[in-house]
């Protein structure tokens, strides 16, 4: 427990400069991109005179110097104010609070599916490397991994939503159903089955292959030979000695995948018309909505930092050599 606390403290301290770099970097990058919210607005209007442009720029504060705007923005951030979305004409924080949970459910469920089923099948394959089961699972997972998630999503929709009508084709819940409590949760879960499968099955293949490779390596370790020399049950050797050690790189992978999945969710949210975080980012880009986009990037960065902190704590719990102050040999 003490190790987890030390780790948390160290991670939080080191994440402050990371966040600062993300904030300033995003701000400058958006500044360097041609066009601003006023351009995008005028484009939607079909044009406007120079007076209107100047007036709009002034009201948004876009006429101020770069440094002044950056200072204002960071100052507001410290008060947990992410600014005002130009396209939605609403506070950025409200928008994010509305959209983020949908994506978190999607990502959380997809990660849980990918990790649990992936590592389970990886253990099945890695229990006997080179066996028929292993080869079938390895080939199957490779095929799955090669499939793009939008294609898998569309196929799932065609088969399970259009033909079989088991699941809804799109959306996060039944619109205006008036459902509350458990019924609403069930409704959302029912809507999430296909998108979670589309996103999760791709990553499942990754975890499966990683588990299998890790186990193949672990079988060659001396302690596995020693476990066999102790005459232990095969099940115990596979689970406690081989799989237990192969699990460690998977946990590291879990942290890396969180970031990739956040990006991958844009595609799946578009296919399944889920009002999520990824789609919000897409909308912010097309509306040249700098405050919204910056807010989304900052929240994503924080999300990735938090997930990686959790992963580090999990890793420290799984590997006694981490953070014990002694070099692992």
């Amino acid at each position, binding site marked *: 427990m003490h190790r987890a606390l030390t780790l948390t403290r160290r991670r939080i301290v080191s994440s402050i400069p990371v966040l600062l770099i993300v904030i300033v970097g995003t701000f400058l990058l958006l500044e360097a991109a041609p066009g601003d919210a006023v351009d995008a607005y005028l484009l939607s209007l079909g044009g406007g005179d120079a007076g209107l442009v100047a007036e709009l720029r002034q009201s948004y504060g876009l006429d101020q110097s770069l440094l002044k705007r950056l200072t204002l923005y960071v100052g507001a951030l410290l008060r947990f104010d992410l600014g005002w979305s130009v396209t939605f004409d609403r506070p950025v924080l409200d928008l994010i609070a509305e959209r983020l949970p949908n994506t978190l459910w999607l990502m959380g469920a997809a990660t849980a599916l990918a990790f649990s089923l992936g590592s389970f099948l990886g253990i099945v394959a890695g229990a006997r490397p080179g066996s028929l089961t292993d080869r079938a699972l390895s080939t199957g997972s490779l095929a799955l991994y090669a499939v793009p998630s939008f294609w898998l999503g569309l196929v799932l929709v065609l088969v399970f939503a259009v033909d079989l009508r088991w699941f809804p084709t799109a959306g996060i819940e039944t619109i205006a159903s008036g459902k509350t409590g458990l019924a609403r949760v069930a409704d959302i879960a029912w809507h999430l089955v296909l998108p979670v499968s589309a996103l999760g099955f791709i990553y499942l293949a990754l975890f499966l292959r990683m588990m299998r490779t890790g186990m193949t390596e672990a079988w060659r370790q*001396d302690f596995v030979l020693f476990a066999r*020399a102790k005459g232990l049950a095969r099940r*115990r050797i596979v689970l406690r000695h081989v799989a237990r050690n192969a699990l460690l790189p998977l946990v590291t992978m879990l942290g890396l995948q969180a970031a990739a999945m956040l990006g991958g969710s844009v595609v799946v949210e578009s296919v399944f018309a889920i009002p999520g975080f990824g789609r919000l980012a897409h909308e912010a880009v097309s509306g040249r909505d700098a405050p919204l986009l910056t807010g989304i990037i900052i929240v994503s960065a924080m999300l990735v930092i938090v997930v990686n902190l959790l992963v580090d704590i999990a890793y420290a719990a799984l590997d006694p050599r981490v953070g014990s102050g002694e070099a692992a040999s």
Partner: protein
Amino acid sequence: MSAPLAEIRGLSVSYLRDDARSFALRDVDLDIAKGRRLAVIGESGSGKSTLALALAGLLPPQARIEGSIGWPGLAKPPVAGRDIGMVFQDPGGSLNPVLTIGEQVAEGAVRHLGLDWRAARSHALTLLERVRIPDPQAALRAYPHQFSGGQRQRIGIAAAIAARPGLLIADEPTSALDMVVQAEIVALLDELVREAGMTLVFITHDIALASGFADDIAVFQRAQLVEKGAAQAVLAQPAHACTKRLLAAQIDFSTPRLIDGVADV
């Protein structure tokens, strides 16, 4: 003399490599006498470790085995762990880095002695005391990286004898350790074998180390058994050139320098 514990007859172990068979052991005949200490001596690659794996039934599936190993000293064919304990060369690698010492010492007892985990852990505590691990109570909850090489080897020995096997095979148990620790491990093995009346097969390349406490000696060279007999007889009158060379290769203070031209420091 009573029936030997194990009778090895015409044992050959070979692997197929590039369509050619390469022998790790070739036509070995050897008896392992019950309650005695057999030192198996040979250079690297002489097949002595293969003999250990063959005795414990741990050869990889691609190994081709000919000949037989009979166990007249046992009522039933031996089971690894229950009847044969193994101690390996690298004490760092033979313990699982992510499991507690307690679990790794106790698991053999759970498997073979029918103990539950609580009883097995207290059995493990006794074993850790016997191999003289400092603060055995704390050691149960500790992990391998918290111990020195010599301590890890003691833990490995404790785990190997957890199910009270009648035969202990130690495969180069001291080669990865320094001289002082080597002597301690050999003394510990000697003591444990004596107390429990175990048969010991001690595999080493170090004839001096073996000569100290072995009853019998078997010398291997290039996959073949070249000399066997009572330790004193073999050491006093080595019949085979290989044994003579191994005896001559002992390094002591009268040994000429291995590297010439190095000034005294």
